[in-house]
């Protein structure tokens, strides 16, 4: 039977194709029980393959907890994660930029491998839900055929590099940050210095200080474009983040010249990998390290690390390209002037169209309800992009899509095309454009239904949007299903996150209310918590607070200022009116969540995977060695003696490299150097040493290394066995190295 791997051979970049082959082998090894489930979990997470709610094989059906009897019941893809349980595939889209062809391919894979819905996340990624792990290699190959990788979309790695969706066309930007976001994304992807983090690491770019779009202050690493004496560079921030307790990023440097951006990011990664918390997940983000050390000490350590870095041509090779970077519109610019405007156009244009810096061009926002669009809509959006925009589609952190470089004269036709698709709704960036994380719909950590609430509020506001005062229309609502802030609730005028309360022995879904986040200055201030109310009262609270804001605001007073002026106690009073929960017998609806008729329970809460598994670089490298050894065995089975010999040797070399790196992190990946250093640093000091066999396993390695390939079937079979034993010995050696490290002096 023809398969996608064969069909796409030659059309995938070789590095991506190779990585996916490796991942597929890891799946096979896990099936055979040759990879520990924890290690496999982190492996798949680093390919963007997430678990989903109920994947522990249990679901409360409203009356009882039901056991879900998946066919491969004994097989897991992580701790308490059933193999057959539906999962989520996150797909990284650096700076949210994609071409029409990429969008079409995403549409195909959403239809064939998921539920036909493309979900745009709050970090410009796409997510596909209800996928099966067995299909993920195929899904990845198809994505790779259009240049998309899912690598490091999850796990303790560098996540998607986000950027302002108006980069390159915005009136307020210093320069277009797009090529820098792209360069950083490429440079850090799979970089050896970013493989040993205790938690995830999120970078972001903005072209200006004053707008919100780039969200720089809430990121682990943020860069805002600056020009100093005509030189391009960045105001660089570190240590921001939302989560349970949000941190504002600290200024690392007022000006980092463009040629220093990548090396400094690398040095920051090395310091984070070396000194960041690894065991306590709750304290492992870089924001805690920066807070613990202080920004001055952190900066000193990074600059010290920077000075030690061996030069890398990639640090600057992209800069010429960055300066020349431009996008090609489909059409020449033309003003809208007196062109006929279809019904509804003006209202749509008022919220969804922004004039570009380039005269005659505009950016059109496509409002996606809850960030969702169907495969069929996606194909038609690709068509519209080709016709009216060019190659420049971007996703936004507000879970929308924007088409840039639309000739203003084409806006009515574009709007007509969107209306046909059911995508012509106005209200982008307004109170109607509610942002929500997946919450209890699919997330294992979700406590309350953020999407259910968002859908309800949206539905209620849609009918009267045009009757709302403009001040109320301009507010932003964001909600998360729990305190982990994936819905970015701290950044909204009015934010919510899911919690639970017990009333007369029954659980009641609630939302904590946050007021006064500022959607400007790259998120200059976070909203503050004022109390919690039952989920069913949240829409009423939204009505009351917005009406009061409209009624009592002074002049052009913004919402955050309004909240500050009336005071926290007054806000609390408004909350308290809505706190009471009626008795179950009086109104049982309070005891169910929005959009879910089941009686509310916390029983479905699982173990989150956002944090990934704490698996060291050494573990990963040794697993890579095992995978090579396994492939050698397959070659033997296929009677490919030369292939088996090569792979068995490479497996040993990989294991040796993994160990040497513990002693000399920057060891060059050259066989001769690895062998020499392995001998000097591990064999001769008897660290790689078996209590009974002594240095035998190392000698097996050196025999093949010094003697070159072996050719007889018996010899190669023996070599494959020796390779396996060498890797086992490497594991034992790794344990000794860990003990040695644990017993050593504490890190500064």
């Amino acid at each position: 039977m023809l398969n996608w791997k064969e069909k796409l051979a030659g059309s995938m970049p070789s590095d991506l194709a190779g990585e996916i082959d490796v991942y597929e082998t890891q799946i096979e090894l896990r099936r055979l029980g040759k990879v520990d489930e924890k290690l496999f979990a982190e492996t798949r997470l680093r390919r963007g393959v997430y678990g989903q709610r109920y994947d522990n094989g249990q679901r409360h059906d409203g009356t009882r907890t039901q056991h879900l009897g998946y066919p491969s019941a004994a097989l897991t893809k992580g701790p308490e994660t059933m193999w057959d349980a539906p999962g989520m595939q996150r797909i990284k889209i650096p700076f949210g930029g994609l071409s029409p062809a990429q969008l079409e391919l995403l549409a195909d894979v959403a239809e064939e491998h998921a539920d036909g819905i493309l979900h745009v996340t709050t970090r410009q990624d796409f997510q596909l839900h209800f996928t099966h792990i067995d299909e993920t290699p195929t899904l990845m190959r198809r994505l790779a055929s259009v240049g998309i990788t899912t690598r490091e979309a999850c796990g303790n790695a560098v996540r998607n590099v986000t950027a302002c969706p108006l980069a390159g066309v915005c009136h307020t930007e210093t320069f277009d940050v797009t090529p820098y976001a792209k360069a950083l994304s490429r440079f850090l992807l799979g970089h050896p210095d970013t493989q040993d983090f205790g938690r995830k690491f999120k970078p972001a770019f903005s072209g200006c200080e004053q707008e919100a779009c780039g969200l720089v202050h809430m990121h682990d690493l943020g860069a805002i474009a600056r020009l100093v004496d005509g030189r391009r560079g960045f105001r660089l921030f570190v240590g921001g983040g939302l989560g349970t307790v949000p941190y504002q990023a600290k200024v690392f440097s007022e000006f980092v010249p463009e040629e220093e951006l990548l090396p400094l990011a690398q040095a920051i990664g090395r310091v984070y990998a070396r000194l960041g918390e690894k065991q306590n997940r709750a304290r492992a983000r870089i924001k805690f390290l920066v807070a613990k050390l202080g920004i001055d000490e952190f900066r000193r350590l990074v600059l010290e690390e920077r000075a030690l870095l061996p030069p890398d041509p990639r640090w600057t090779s992209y800069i010429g390209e960055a300066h020349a970077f431009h996008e090609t519109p489909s059409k020449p610019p033309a003003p809208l002037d007196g062109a006929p405007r279809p019904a509804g156009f003006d209202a749509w244009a008022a919220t969804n169209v922004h004039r570009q810096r380039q005269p005659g061009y505009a950016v059109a926002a496509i409002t996606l309800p809850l960030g969702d669009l169907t495969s069929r809509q996606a194909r038609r959006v690709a068509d519209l992009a080709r016709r009216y925009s060019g190659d420049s589609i971007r996703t936004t952190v507000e879970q929308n899509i924007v088409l840039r470089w639309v000739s203003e004269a084409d806006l009515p036709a574009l709007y007509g095309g969107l209306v046909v698709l059911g995508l012509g709704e106005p209200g982008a960036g307004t109170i109607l454009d509610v942002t929500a994380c997946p919450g209890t719909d699919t997330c294992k950590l979700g406590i309350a239904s953020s999407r259910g609430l968002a859908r309800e509020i949206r539905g209620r506001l849609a009918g009267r949007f045009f009757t709302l005062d403009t001040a109320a229309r301009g507010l932003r609502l964001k909600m998360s299903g729990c305190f982990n802030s994936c819905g970015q609730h701290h950044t909204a005028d009015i934010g919510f996150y899911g919690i639970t309360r017990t009333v007369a022995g029954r659980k009641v879904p609630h939302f904590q209310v946050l007021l006064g986040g500022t959607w400007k200055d790259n998120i200059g201030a976070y909203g503050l918590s004022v109390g919690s109310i039952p989920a069913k009262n949240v829409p009423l609270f939204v009505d009351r607070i917005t009406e009061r804001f409209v009624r009592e605001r002074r002049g052009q007073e913004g919402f955050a200022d309004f909240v500050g002026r009336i005071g926290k106690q007054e806000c609390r009073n408004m909350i308290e009116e809505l706190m009471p929960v009626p008795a179950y017998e009086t109104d049982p609806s309070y005891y169910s969540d929005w959009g879910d008729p089941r009686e509310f329970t916390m029983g479905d809460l699982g173990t989150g995977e956002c944090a990934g598994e704490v698996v060291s670089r050494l573990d990963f490298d040794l697993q890579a060695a095992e995978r090579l050894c396994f492939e050698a065995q397959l070659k033997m089975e296929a009677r490919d003696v030369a292939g088996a010999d090569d792979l068995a040797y490479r497996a040993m070399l990989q294991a040796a490299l993994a160990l040497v790196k513990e002693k000399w992190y920057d060891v060059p990946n050259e066989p001769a150097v690895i062998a020499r250093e392995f001998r000097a640093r591990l064999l001769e000091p008897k660290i790689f040493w078996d209590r009974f066999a002594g240095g035998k396993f190392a000698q097996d390695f050196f025999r093949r290394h010094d003697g070159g390939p072996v050719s007889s079937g018996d010899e190669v079979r023996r070599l494959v066995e020796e390779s396996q034993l060498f890797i086992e010995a490497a594991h034992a050696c790794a344990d000794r190295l860990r003990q040695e490290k644990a017993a050593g002096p504490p890190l500064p």
Partner: protein
Amino acid sequence: MTFEGDLYRLGVKIDLIEPAAVDLRALIPAFHRWIQKQALAGHLLIDVHDYSHVHEGPGILLVAHEGNFSLDGSDGRPGLAYQRKQPAADPLAVSIEGARAACRLLETEGLRFRADEFLVFANDRLLAPNTPEGRSMLESLLRKAFPGARVALAPQAADPRERLAYVVTLG
């Protein structure tokens, strides 16, 4: 190329009669009850997902391990769609029966479905691309499944990017 032995990602959609009278979200509790009772034979029913906010989308989705059921609104024609995800001995027959079984249950909730016509689609662009060759293969598969002259087959979706699909009208 032949896909008959390999193609199992088939879907069947049966249109609603009087769809305007149906409130999709009001059927969410029915899907939850089905999960409580594991009411569809041969399926491990897992979860309900609300996509009613999406224009002409999957509507209300009932996820099962073997295949997904949805009160689907695509093409502006609301109906019950069943989409097979796991291999089966006779995937076409299993898909048709899957859709019909769900329709029978929904009829107890007051919904009515067309009995004279349904849509069959292949959710596999590798084995069944929307090309003349693919159409000819799917048509041949359907003719074998419905022998006799009293069945009309009409190909759908001229856009080759869309899934290969046929409307089957029973005489």
